[in-house]
């Protein structure tokens, strides 16, 4: 039997779903990006107008806003973290839940399976010592209890994979997900309060009104737990990061991808910065980020405040795509000069939607004092 169509069908399904999560950037018309599925997106996005748009800052209320916002098309719960066991063996992990609304129709059905809310989850693990990277994905409709999120407490799940707050607000979040190859079972303690990204949680991604998202993060989550690689269990601890974001549309046709940095420094400060890559190669004025200080204050960053220099590239043997693999980041206002390097190069998620999302190490200086750190970088929209 020819396996190709099977794989293709699976791929197409995922592409059609994930295009909306990781970036409508793929909707652009560039010929080499007319991946199967993209041309048909018009069918699914025809009902665009029916979704609410992110037009202005809003007031967040929790735990309500930890739950899904089904009036918006896409949404995600994004966990990444750097961990190590007692002997110092390093691991990175990613667990992400994506929600995608297929349409805004009201549903009346006798069937509990009828739903227009789709969930997708990605799980990845980086085994630094063995230079191995594992990833897997799951899909389900939000129906019949198979996947969904709660509004009365932090809980999102897809089948057996879940992120759930153990008790009341600010109590630890329990992450659990497993595949036949690897699994994670982690407890994430909120050590720094929730931060609203952009303008009070309103994050503009391109100039058109509505091309924005609501965005908040937990930038420092003290993490303990167990991970499993094949049949080996490791007791680990470390620091995680959580991003929550929902929107109906974000990128413009000019924007083809993004690089996103979530960095945690040894001095109890963090940095989030995303830069949107344009077709014309110019710096996008919507690039944005912030430094989060130890005293919980926030210093916003715009494109003028930061320079990102790519020092090296890595070409994926799977996809042939060349990704940046070594960066130099300077923030003159903070007197910060750092270099960012992936813990291992191959952290490409070869799932139905392909992107690079990996654990990184940081070395550099801040105000003349050496600084180290760790974090995650996401590279989306790269192609051959």
């Amino acid at each position, binding site marked *: 039997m020819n396996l190709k169509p099977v794989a293709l069908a699976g791929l197409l399904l995922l592409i059609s779903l994930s295009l909306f999560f990781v970036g409508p950037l793929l909707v652009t018309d560039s010929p080499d990006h007319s991946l199967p599925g993209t*041309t048909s997106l018009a069918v699914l996005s025809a009902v665009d107008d029916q979704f609410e748009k992110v037009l202005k800052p809003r007031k967040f209320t929790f735990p309500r806003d930890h739950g899904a916002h089904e009036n918006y098309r896409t949404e995600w719960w994004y966990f990444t973290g750097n961990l190590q066991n007692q002997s110092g063996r390093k691991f990175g992990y990613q667990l992400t839940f994506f929600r995608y609304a297929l349409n805004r129709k009201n549903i009346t059905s006798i*069937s509990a399976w*009828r739903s227009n809310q*789709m969930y997708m989850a990605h799980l990845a693990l980086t085994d630094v010592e063995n230079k191995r990277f594992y990833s897997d994905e799951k899909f389900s409709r939000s129906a019949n209890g198979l996947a969904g999120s709660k509004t009365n407490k932090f809980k999102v799940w897809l089948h057996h994979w879940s992120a759930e707050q153990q008790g009341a607000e600010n109590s630890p979040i329990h992450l659990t997900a497993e595949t036949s190859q690897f699994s994670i079972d982690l407890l994430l303690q909120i050590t720094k309060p929730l931060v609203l990204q952009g303008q009070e949680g309103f994050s503009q991604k391109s100039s058109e009104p509505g091309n924005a998202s609501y965005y908040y993060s937990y930038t420092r989550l003290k993490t303990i737990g167990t991970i499993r690689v094949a049949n080996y269990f490791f007791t680990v601890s470390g620091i995680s990061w959580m991003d929550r974001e929902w929107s109906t549309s974000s990128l413009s046709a000019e924007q083809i991808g993004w690089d996103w940095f979530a960095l945690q420094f040894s001095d109890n400060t963090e940095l989030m910065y995303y830069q949107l890559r344009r077709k014309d190669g110019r710096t996008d004025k919507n690039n944005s980020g912030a430094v989060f200080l130890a005293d919980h204050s926030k210093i916003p960053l715009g494109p003028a405040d930061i320079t990102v220099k790519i020092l090296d590239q890595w070409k994926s043997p799977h996809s042939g795509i060349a990704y940046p693999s070594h960066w130099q980041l300077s923030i003159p206002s903070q007197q910060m000069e750092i270099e960012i390097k992936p813990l291992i190069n191959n952290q490409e998620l070869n799932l139905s939607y392909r992107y690079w999302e990996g654990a990184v190490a940081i070395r550099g200086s801040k105000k003349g004092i050496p600084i180290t750190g760790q974090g995650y970088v996401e590279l989306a929209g790269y192609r051959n």
Partner: protein
Amino acid sequence: MTSILVRANRNFLFQHPWQLALALIGISLGVAVVIAIDLALESSLQSFQQINQVVSGKTSHRIIARDGNLNEKLYTQLRVELGIPNLAPVIRGNIQLANHPGEPFKIYGIDPLIEDTFQSTWRLQTSNQKSAISLIRLVSEANTALIAKVTAEQLALKINDHLAIATPKGTLNLKIIGFLNQNSTISSQILKNLMITDISTAQEILNQPGKLSFIEFMSEGNNDKRFLESIRNHLTADTLLITSENQIQSMRQMTKAFNINLKALGMLSLLIGMFLIYNTMTFLVIQRRRLIGGLRCIGVTRRQIFTLIISEALFLACIGSLLGIFLGVLIGNALLQLTSTTIETIYYQVGQVALIISPEQLGKGMILGIGATIFAVLPPAWEATKVSPTSSLIRSQLERKIYKFTHIAGILGLISVLGGVILAFSSEKSIFLGLASIFILLFGFALMIPGLTVLMMKLLEKISNHFLGILGSLPPRMVGSEISRTGVAIAALMIAVSATIGMDLMVNSFRQTVSDWITTSLRADFYVSALSNQSSTQKQLIDQSVKDKINALPGVQMLSSVLHTRIISESGLIKASVFELNNKSQDGFIFKQKIDGNLWQQFEQRQTIFITESFAYFHELKVGETLFLHTKKGHQPFKIIGIYSDYSGDQGHIAMTRKWYQQYWKNSGFTGIGIYADTNANQQQLKQNIQKLLTPELTLKSNQSIYKASMEIFEQTFVITNALRWIAAGIAFTGVFSALMALQFERIKQFGILRAIGVTQRQLTLLIMTETGLIGLIAGVCAIPVGYFMAYILIFIVYLRSFGWTMAFHFNVSVLFQGLALAFTAALLAGILPAIKMAQTKPAEALRSE
């Protein structure tokens, strides 16, 4: 030398085209029937597997519910609570197209978002849009469906067209958003009349919210043992985990008896076909005795002669078998509809069936055809080589030898008959050996035929010589003296007719037994039952409230009820009938053992069951033994206190009271309610009153109409048997026809002499007709005891072993007369054409012909 040989024979073969044709018919019909049956039966199973491939893909296990309806919450529990991957929920049902009523259409509801481990065919579908998008559209848009391209072409539908289906709530338009991809592994027939929708759409259409038909599981390796373990631990008394292999195996097991019995009929056709081949080849050898003698005279060796005849047979066998395969596929296609209907009603849901042809099956047919031909041609081939060059030119030499052979054959026949009888009774439970014994018996009787014929003809010759003179004694003498030809024809005809008689007797006995059983069982005046729900694979049940309302009607003396369901036992899923009986309906049970006065009291008050005869036979259970059943309170022992007759299915079932059922299983409705009217009640009035209480899904029937309907089902199950029997008879008739024709045409000179010495046309016609009539009569007379024997073995050995049923032997004289008449008429008919032809031949021409 070889080229002379070949040419001489080729010329000979082509000079006798009709002999050639008959030989080919013999081989091809035999092969065709065997192939057809094999194809039809295997295709039913293969179709089942292919539908699985389309809907579920590769699976290792399946979770089913005992009543066919799985709660969808189980799926969520397995996925979310237990974290079990690679599960696929499926709901299936039947739908009706609004514009093509009567054409069965299957709907399968699936979840497009499951892992692609299953590699099911629905993933590989084509549409104007890309596949993934239409899979998403299945979920996101209500009333969307995938159908096969063949179906779409047939219904003249394009992508995004609508297909109207009939639902209880009216017509519903389904949008076709993609085509199921056809590939080499899936027959396009399978995809025909099949529709894939999202599970939500299917639940809506079938009006079965909350229900799944089954959940598939794909175990990927040893690691998954813990998943299987946790699935097992999570199953309730109403759910069962079976392996896919087990499922196919149990299907094979279920249809094994059906299968073997049909194949036996196929083999019977081939056996008779072999007679035909033997007959033709003998004829061809005999006709060429002069030629062979001549060839031997000019130095051709025995070996060359033997090779020549065998290779000639091989040539015929190849052509005949090829024709047979072609014909077999055609017949198989026709048979498939019949077998699948039977399988569907009696055994399991097949869904759409398609004739699936494997090269192995065709190879089997080829080998069978060639093997049978060579086997049948060996005696004449040896015969041709063993005679010396000069003697081979003398025909009488052969007849004398054959004459001697009849004695040996008779003895061999007797031994075979005895062996067959011993095998029949000593082969315990084997259906195969039971049927084999029939074949050995038939073969034995056939071997005895020439000897018997010679004896009978000698006797008849003496009698007719005495009363009718020389001309009168001619027919028996002709039959007896050319026994090499007539003997085979009589044997073939005898076998066909005895098979007819045997089967008729068996079916009659069976019919009578079933009729008696139904009459005894139907105790109530009226029965309310649920119609099979068109849209569901499950029968709908009758509510308690309906029963209560009927009970309250004036004129109702009492009620009885039954629920046909399935229960999980140690050995898997078994059928169960749950009864509420009254003293009248209790009389409807025919027990196979002596019963004592408190049997019914025990049945009502203790944790006991009755089992049917078939159930007892197949599970090797006896009264007093205990069966453990899986209940909501764990495994519970049920003591068997009675075994009763039941012919409603060949797997058998258990029976328990409703009281005990309700204690251990969830309370369900009823499959049927029996209504007993007061003796002085106005039945017509009562009938009308009951009718008023019933919803459209429920039917009210009198016991007579149930009787009638049951008997119709009975007849339906014998459709295939009858069809095959007539095919066998047809081959036999062809055999007789060819033998007699050959015989008569061979005697042109003889008839010429008769005509020359003053025998009139009329007398000659009469002579020929009498001879063939005699042949028919001998065959018929011999067929009667043989048929009787066959019926006996079929009833008491083969059917008991196949279905676990005992039946009473109902002797029917008319069957015997019919058999006799059949043999006689067949032979007489075969004589007409030669008789006319011979009679019309001018004596001088006839004399010249040699």
